[in-house]
């Protein structure tokens, strides 16, 4: 396409939609301790 370029592969509709397994770190166990940082966490399931 000439006008629009999609730069990522994310598609929430296809992402793991069941119950989150809970194996990854919770937000405030990492560097912040004062803010919600869910987005900065890594999914354990996608670790190679």
């Amino acid at each position, binding site marked *: 396409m000439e006008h629009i370029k999609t730069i990522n592969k994310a598609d929430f509709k296809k992402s*793991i939609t069941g119950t989150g397994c809970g194996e990854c770190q919770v937000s405030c166990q990492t560097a912040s301790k004062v803010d919600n940082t869910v987005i900065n966490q890594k999914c354990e399931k996608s670790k190679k």
Partner: protein
Amino acid sequence: MVHKYKFRDTNFVIDGNSGAIHIVDDISYDILDCLDGNFFDYTENYIVKKLADKYSKEKIKEAYGEIFKIYESGKLFSSDTHENLATEENLNSPVKALCLNVAHDCNMQCKYCFASKGDFGCGRELMSLETAKKAIDFVVQNSGSIRNLEIDFFGGEPLMNFEVVKEAVKYARSLEKEYDKNFRFTITTNGILLDDDKIDFINKEMFDIVLSLDGRREINDKYRVTRGGVGTYDVVVPRFQKLVAKRGNKNYYVRGTYAKDNIKFSDDVLHIYDLGFKHISMEPALCGDKFESSITEECLDEVLKEQENLCNKLIDMNLSGRDVDFFNFSIDINEGPCILKRLKGCGCGNDYVAVTPNGDIYSCHQVVGEEKFKMGNINSGTFDKKRKKPFLNTTIYHKEKCRECWAKFYCSGGCTAKNYFNCGSIMDPYDLACRMQKKKIECAVAYQFYINQNY
């Protein structure tokens, strides 16, 4: 929910509901402007007329056609189809992470400390090993089938009770096999008491470490002072450097706080990098009236500008081969956390709780001492599961403002404690934090785009 913004010379478009991120040319950007977030409210003819002064009819039709195609593929103006996931059954999680406040005491007196100089206003106290062990038993018993359990040694200053930290780690490790659990320990420290033995123990056992430092000496020493009021930069920096030098590839973050009188925090982030620390995080002091230099509405514009400024600097550094990892911009735009984790929020009072030296269980470390957030006590063996309920209902779907927000799957509804302290309710997003959070997301997306420019 479609959000668009400009960063450097690039037009970014985030489709909040699908997670798709696009870069678009000016004409598409203008078309999206006219559409105003509602694709079907406007016809192609309307757009052609509206933009006739600026672009030719053919070009507009061409770009509009592409927008339509992306819409058809579900990556623009997509609908939110995840609300049905927010059932109590899905949201209610076993408790798998503890913030263990091993010391309600501190050898420093940072002026913005939310813990009222370490003791949370509850009097100085150290956690006994017995309580620490019981807390570990508690998380083993309440974590269901979850294998990775997290213990963060926190305070006050946890090194003031290091024997208990060591023994607690030993005890937890002794349970791993029998219960099929994997403990991940983290510690947050001001560094004053770090010596070789502690460094070696921490590097061996801790999965992650948070080292507190605000940046340049004059900035750090303004607020990060000893009880006698003396700056701590010269004491802690060499200790942190030693720890990190011996740490190999394991995780750590040097974490700073910025306040109203040092909004130029990008200089502090760079200073921390120049000290030899690659992994850095920086958060605003958002303490409302409790701290005179708290970030407030008046300095918001400056803060937002500085976030962008930092982002620009970090992009340039990375592109010139200086490898720096800034926690707040570190997101995975291709995958990242699953949707349920995103909509649930931080997990306070649900999969995560804080335990005080006397064994009280609170929904999170920020609300220690607030009676209404007390959920039980480790020593008396009480844990009122009913008290989880209000926290389960803090998802992005339970909060009106979040439902309508383009950033909801990136922000996950903000910090429940901040909402409570600043707005009086755990259900009301704190507007100031929201605006900073959104800027952070914009920057993080742009940052990831620029440093991985192989698209």
